């Protein structure tokens, strides 16, 4: 498949964008780790870690830009933080304080939806509604591989196709629907399935944020130019279990978990930019201090 690129949406990240990618990944990792700690201490009821998905989330979120309207599933913490959701707003719903801790309208980052794939139809309906009112937004809908088994996902893909809705579907495929491996969930890739509905799609690895950024930039440009939907499937690693209540060691072998940890996209990208001389120790120390400050504030708010 050839996606049409537009010059105004650069497909290759420049050096500032590369540092921005890394910074957002490091912040997301730090906040996620703090949330895991807070859950262990009983300050949060539950946490759904996004560790291993940072490159996919940060790369896609930066690529679609700040004006896109995002319909997340419930694990898009790195997207949320990048969009301006503060760490304490992000964890508020997992501490039982609210159903949504942030301002969805202002941030154009809509509330998490815990019933799988329900948001896919909302995203398409929203895109149609915006178009009918003369506003041509780019709508970005996130979902995981597990959610693609839901009927609403197929209905949303078909609706988006026949209505030519300006929706970019981003499927993060971490290979597991809790304990059900991807090989038992589907016989084709999600990207291949999208093409069956008449939706252009691409499948790109989720380890490198630059690859994701480039693919999502092209996909977003395609949606904007063609006013037609597109789907990007991003295979990602899953470092932790589905949630803090999950015990992935029960159903997942140690080598597989070790492989996911070894392929950590955050440490890999930090090493790469360090090796290229794009970031130095001082830069990394400054981000580290920023993350430490965020973590301390979060801990004080919730412990």
């Amino acid at each position, binding site marked *: 498949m050839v996606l049409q690129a537009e010059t105004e949406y650069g497909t290759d990240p420049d050096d500032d964008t590369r540092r921005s990618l890394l910074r957002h990944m490091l912040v997301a990792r730090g906040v996620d780790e703090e949330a895991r700690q807070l859950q262990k201490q009983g300050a949060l009821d539950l946490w759904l870690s996004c560790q291993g998905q940072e490159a996919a989330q940060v790369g896609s979120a930066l690529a679609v830009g700040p004006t896109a309207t995002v319909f997340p599933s419930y694990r898009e913490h790195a997207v949320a933080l990048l969009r301006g959701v503060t760490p304490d707003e992000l964890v508020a719903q997992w501490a039982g304080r*609210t*159903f*949504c801790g942030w*301002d*969805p*309208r202002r941030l154009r980052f*809509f*509330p998490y*939806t815990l*019933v799988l794939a*329900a948001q*896919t*139809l*909302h*995203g*398409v*309906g*929203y*895109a*149609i*509604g*915006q178009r*009918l*009112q003369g*506003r041509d937004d780019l709508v970005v809908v996130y979902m995981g591989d597990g959610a693609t088994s839901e*009927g*609403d996902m197929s*209905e*949303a893909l*078909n*609706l988006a196709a*026949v209505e030519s809705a300006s929706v970019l579907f981003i499927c993060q495929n971490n290979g597991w629907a809790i304990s059900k491996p991807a090989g038992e969930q589907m016989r084709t890739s999600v990207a291949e399935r999208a093409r069956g509905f008449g939706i252009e799609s691409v499948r790109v690895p989720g380890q490198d944020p630059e690859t994701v950024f480039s693919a999502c930039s092209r996909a977003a440009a395609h949606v904007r130019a063609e006013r037609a939907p597109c789907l990007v499937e991003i295979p990602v690693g899953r470092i932790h279990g589905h949630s803090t209540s999950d015990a992935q060691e029960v159903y997942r072998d140690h080598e597989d978990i070790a492989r996911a940890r070894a392929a950590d996209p955050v440490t890999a990208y930090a090493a790469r930019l360090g090796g290229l001389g794009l970031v130095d120790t001082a830069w990394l120390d400054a981000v580290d201090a920023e993350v430490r400050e965020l973590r301390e504030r979060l801990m004080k708010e919730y412990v």
Partner: protein
Amino acid sequence: MSAVRSAALAESINATLADLLEQDPRLLLLGEDIGRLGGVFRVTRGLRERFGAERVRDSLLAESTIVGQAVGMAMSGLVPVCEIQFDGFTYPAVNQLVTQAARIGDRWNGQVSPSLVVRIPTGGGVRGVEHHSESNEALFARVPGISVACPSTGEDADQILRYAVTLGSPVVMYEPIRLYWRRNTPARDPEPARSPTAARIVRRGTDLTIATFGAVTHEVLEAAYALSPEVDVEVVDLRWVAPLDMNTVLESVARTGRLLVVHEGSKDVGIGAEVAASVAEHAFDALRGPVRRLAPDRRAYPPADFEKDYLIGVREIKDEVLVMTK
């Protein structure tokens, strides 16, 4: 019995929808075959020609798609009025209605107030095939965040629709199929309802109150006229089953001392149970006898040849009233 000839329910709803489309550019209709065909019951006939295919939208043949996209449209500021083709096809949309439409307002901390209406043709008596004659209003009546209306006349449907599109939370409106094109109906007291959400006393009486709603309201009125003057029955058309206007029922029971609840949906854990429980809680001292319910047994709606055994008719209503007042 006095009868009146009036506009059919389908014509009234058509006129109301046309007026609403005329008045509010944010409002649109969405449903299977509602555009080109005008709906399988022709309720939306002519509207696509008048308002265009963008605002009178022939949807895909998928009920979750209808309500799910309507939720997204409401988030974008539109007011979608959906049609589900038949009551029995509501179920694929239940998830989107119950877990999404009903909860969006709370989930958004009030930033979104979806005015979203789902119109559902309902009920039997028209020799429908399987899934085409059901009454599933009690299913949604239990769901916080969803209001459920069951009008029995075009005038009431008009008032309810106009209110529903401004409510800021989802409304499911059940429209009795067998009333769509019926023109002769029993006369009603002209007294208007106290508010768009209130029940309506459609016949004043002194001996017994019948609380009812939907198509069977007409059989109840026929029975009441037939029993007069031996027994003077007061008839309360609830009009909404969620939330229920219990004040009107309780005031009526305070006057008559007897309550019978009649509905077409099956009896167990139905609307009648809720009405009876509320009266037992709040008006026990006013009662001269036990509250009773008249509704079908807990079983699936039968094949058309057997629907007369299932539905509540004028004769059963009269017999029940006589048992309660003898």
